[in-house]
């Protein structure tokens, strides 16, 4: 589907990281900015990191204008991406429910509905009875520990297929001349006079004036090669899937308060996400008590799943920021750009993130949508605090 070339001695730009965001960045660099003499360097195989580990939930119902702009930009691109790449990404706009379990949370979610509508994000409030009509499997009885009082619904939200997105982007990139180099790890970044001159890799030195770092959990590790310290902490985040069953969960269910999120894949497996482990770690495994906690919540929310067996469980390393918003930014080193800090919810932003980051890299100037997510917000105090909408607490 894509070429498997040897690295050339030099490129106009090198993207570190062959996940969804990295491949999307390369795709839009080639397609919209005419930069086809570029490479995507991946230490494992494409889509083998967090792209293959997330729960593929797509939504854009974030509170603040800056977030609504980027996540809705992504959602617009998702709707036509399959046709654009001529690859079925199995985009399913099945709707996303965000449940409220207490009065305070209900008020917070209603505020988000109004904020979403002002930003052109489709969003509505459902009371408990309407939640039951939309998703009959949810237990709305009052005798559970955290009763469901209502929910927000974004009908345009849903899920898609992570592998298909990565493969579709990779094929399109390769066809435009982008080199996708797998099994190649960046071990150092060379600079001269404060500007990037190339990257050291396990397959030799590659000369380039622009390096775009899109390495999720390892963003700090790459940045530290240039002595750049970031406000990012890397944590394990776990997910698991059940044995396949007949259609049971017609939409995406998310709950901040009891801390579980769940959807059903086309194969019939329930895809279930957990919370992060509070300690920093680069080992892709989390703690059992996190899973125990979220399964207890799930069993109460969706009683029929109580006797379901789980097939697989895994962890990925997420790069969390203090304000639960990403970093899409130039850096003090000329020619070094960072797209990271997506924390626990980067998948939904993949095309939008790649699109605005490609602009930022190509023009050496932040795309208007990316500008609020620059590193200097931690100095100015103009944080985009999205903890309420980020779903996974961190």
């Amino acid at each position: 589907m894509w070429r498997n070339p040897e690295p050339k001695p030099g490129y106009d730009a090198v993207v570190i990281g062959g996940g969804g965001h990295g491949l999307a960045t390369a795709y839009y660099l080639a397609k919209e900015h005419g930069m086809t003499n570029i490479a995507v360097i991946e230490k494992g195989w494409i889509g083998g990191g967090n792209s293959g580990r997330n729960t593929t939930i797509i939504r854009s119902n974030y509170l603040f204008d800056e977030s609504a702009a980027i996540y809705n930009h992504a959602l617009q691109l998702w709707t036509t991406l399959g046709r654009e790449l001529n690859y079925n990404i199995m985009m399913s706009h099945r709707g996303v429910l965000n449940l409220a379990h207490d009065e305070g949370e209900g008020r917070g979610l209603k505020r988000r509905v109004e904020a979403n509508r002002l930003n052109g994000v489709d969003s509505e409030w459902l009371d408990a009875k309407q939640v039951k009509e939309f998703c009959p499997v949810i237990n709305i009885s009052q005798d559970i520990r955290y009763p469901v009082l209502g929910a927000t619904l974004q009908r345009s939200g849903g899920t898609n297929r992570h592998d298909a997105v990565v493969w579709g982007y990779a094929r399109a990139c390769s066809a435009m001349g982008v080199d996708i180099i797998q099994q190649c790890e960046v071990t150092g970044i060379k600079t001269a006079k404060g500007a990037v001159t190339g990257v050291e890799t396990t397959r030799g030195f590659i000369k380039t004036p622009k390096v775009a770092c899109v390495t999720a959990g390892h963003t700090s590790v790459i940045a530290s090669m240039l002595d750049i310290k970031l406000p990012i902490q890397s944590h394990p985040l776990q997910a698991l899937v059940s044995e396949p069953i007949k259609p049971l969960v017609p939409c995406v269910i998310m709950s901040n308060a009891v801390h579980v999120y769940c959807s059903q894949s086309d194969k019939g497996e329930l895809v279930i996400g957990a919370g992060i482990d509070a300690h920093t770690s680069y080992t892709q495994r989390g703690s059992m008590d996190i899973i125990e906690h979220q399964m207890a919540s799930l069993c109460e929310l969706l009683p029929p799943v109580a006797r379901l067996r789980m097939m697989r469980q895994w962890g990925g390393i997420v790069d969390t920021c203090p304000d639960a918003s990403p970093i899409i930014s130039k850096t003090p080193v000329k020619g070094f750009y960072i797209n990271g800090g997506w924390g626990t919810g980067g998948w939904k932003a993949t095309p939008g993130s790649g699109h605005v980051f490609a602009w930022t890299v190509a023009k050496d100037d932040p795309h208007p949508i990316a500008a609020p997510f620059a590193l200097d917000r931690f100095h100015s105090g103009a944080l985009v605090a999205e903890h309420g909408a980020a779903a996974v607490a961190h």
Partner: protein
Amino acid sequence: MFLITCPYCGTRDQSEFSNAGEAHVARPANGEELTDEQWADFVFLRNNPKGLFAERWVHTAGCRRFFNMLRNTATDEILAVYEIGAKPPKVTTVEPATPSGEAPIGSGNDAVKVMRPEEPK
């Protein structure tokens, strides 16, 4: 998941403890003289190494006391536990051979481990 040896209570399950972030981050004494950038460094910037890391834990479901710990974040190997205010002891640990690589054992990342020509298959 790992077992943590509280210096006051002994070895307990990790779920009894809460992580309290990086250790040895002192609040600036001359706060009124700091620039916004320097304050941002103190408030937001933390080390996030893949390898040796000094951090604080609190035994939430036990003695409720804070202590420091040295852990290898590439393997979750716990190397030392020591009291608040003490200096970190000298330890040795197996770190990844390359910055974003994986340690030979103890890493959960075997699925994406890069096999190099010199390594045994």
